[in-house]
């Protein structure tokens, strides 16, 4: 008699029970079961319109992948954070699905990560409790230090990666019409620090007030993401061009930086060898006497691009400032994330509910405790 068909289910059941015992609380990332995460985040409970996706590979989920998920918990940030949190309300909609992608292959487009079994498991107002400063580190998984979102329908993961999608909107009291602006940061992990951008050369853009140096949002430069170059300047809106290149030392045999004095822009220099020009309008910021602009560069999921250095510089049209009529900012260089190691978490975020594409951050996640049936 072949006992394997009989033994195999029994072994699997035993193994599952063993795994469940190994992950009694099923906290993700499990490293932070009894350890406060190094950062805080506004995941789900920031009082402004935001759509997020969180991709968690099943290897991090432990035995929950063989059980039904019935809810999740998020705990407040602790560590050195002794803030007293005020009560508030926010509206949250949570959709779970079995993602066709892994965290490592997440895309900035929301639809690319969402599985066909997408199920709304929570849709309602969340009462954020008033919370004193935590006396334990990490904060305990009990109210008011933690918030529980019970699912209205259980969810069973059918693939390698769980996709948690949240849509957050401010809560407006239906009677008074007032809204609360709660601040309830949750304990989170952001993975390793991304490489810092390097500044290349000076800027010749001298106005009052002095424009901030051109920069980047470094952790957006990941495969499948959208890298962001930023510039802010004085209050008057104007046109600028973001020059993007792959070298900061050579432009078709021309050594860089290259002085532009002879072209009528004294004190200015070309810092990058551009292969791409992104025209941008620097617009008035919502506050302060300044303008802001950003240029976004879609980065294909091509392993050959991992670690590739990128260089950027802004040319700002400033008629009358010199014969060339342009100011040239400092250059900035940033490497596309080299992708060392396999990320098990990916976070996509858009600052509204209508954008189909957000910004992708690897290895960023809140610390989550899953509840099972």
């Amino acid at each position: 008699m072949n006992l394997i068909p009989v033994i195999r289910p029994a072994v699997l059941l035993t193994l599952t029970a063993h795994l469940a015992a190994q992950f009694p609380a099923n906290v993700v990332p499990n490293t932070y079961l009894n350890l406060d995460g190094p950062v805080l985040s506004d995941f789900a409970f920031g009082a402004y319109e935001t759509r997020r996706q969180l991709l968690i590979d099943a290897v991090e989920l432990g035995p929950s992948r063989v059980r039904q998920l019935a809810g999740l918990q998020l705990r407040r940030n602790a560590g050195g954070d002794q803030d007293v949190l005020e009560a508030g309300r926010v509206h949250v909609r949570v959709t779970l699905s079995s993602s066709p992608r892994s965290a490592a292959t997440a895309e900035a487009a929301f639809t690319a990560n969402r599985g066909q079994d997408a199920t709304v498991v929570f849709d309602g107002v969340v009462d954020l409790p008033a919370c004193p400063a935590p006396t334990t580190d990490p904060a305990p998984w009990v109210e008011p230090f933690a918030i529980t979102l019970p699912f209205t329908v259980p969810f069973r993961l059918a693939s390698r990666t769980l996709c948690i999608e949240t849509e957050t909107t401010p809560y407006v009291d239906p009677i008074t019409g007032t809204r609360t602006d709660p601040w309830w940061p949750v304990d989170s992990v952001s993975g390793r620090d991304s490489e810092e951008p390097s500044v290349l050369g000076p800027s010749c853009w001298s106005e009052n007030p002095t424009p901030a140096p051109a920069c980047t949002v470094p952790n957006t430069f990941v495969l499948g993401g959208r890298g962001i170059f930023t510039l802010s300047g004085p209050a008057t809106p104007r046109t600028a061009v973001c020059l993007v290149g792959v070298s900061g030392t050579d432009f078709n045999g021309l050594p860089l930086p290259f002085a532009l004095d002879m072209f009528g822009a004294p004190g200015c220099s070309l810092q990058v060898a551009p292969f791409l020009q992104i025209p941008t309008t620097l617009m008035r910021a919502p506050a302060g006497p300044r303008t802001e602009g950003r240029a976004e560069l879609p980065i294909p999921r091509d392993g050959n691009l991992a670690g590739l250095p990128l260089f950027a510089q802004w040319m700002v049209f400033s008629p009358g400032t010199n014969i060339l009529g342009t100011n040239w900012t400092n250059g900035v260089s940033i490497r596309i994330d080299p992708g060392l190691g396999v990320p098990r978490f990916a976070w996509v975020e858009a600052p509204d509910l209508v954008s189909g594409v957000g910004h992708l951050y690897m290895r960023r996640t809140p610390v989550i405790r899953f509840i099972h049936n």
Partner: protein
Amino acid sequence: MNSRSLPSAEHRPGTTSADPRGPSRFKVQPDPPVAGQPVEVTYSGPAKFVEYQVDGQPAVRVRPGADGKFRIDPLPSGDELMFSDNLGIPGYLYREIIQTH
């Protein structure tokens, strides 16, 4: 560029319709801030660097520390304090500065 080709890009102009007095990824203590006194700032968003600016003075770029915190000590004199993370509407905060004299 062989296999390292990058696609066309797009520009995203700065936002003009946000209300920077509303909810934000930034929190300041004390709120409102007071000129000449320290301000404790907590940032909860994903950016590694953020900027703040007082009136028309040059913007200051800061890397928030552990738990998203950084300190402005003391807050320079001025009328307005503004924060930005360059990541859209929730990434702004505007506060009027309380004058002590």
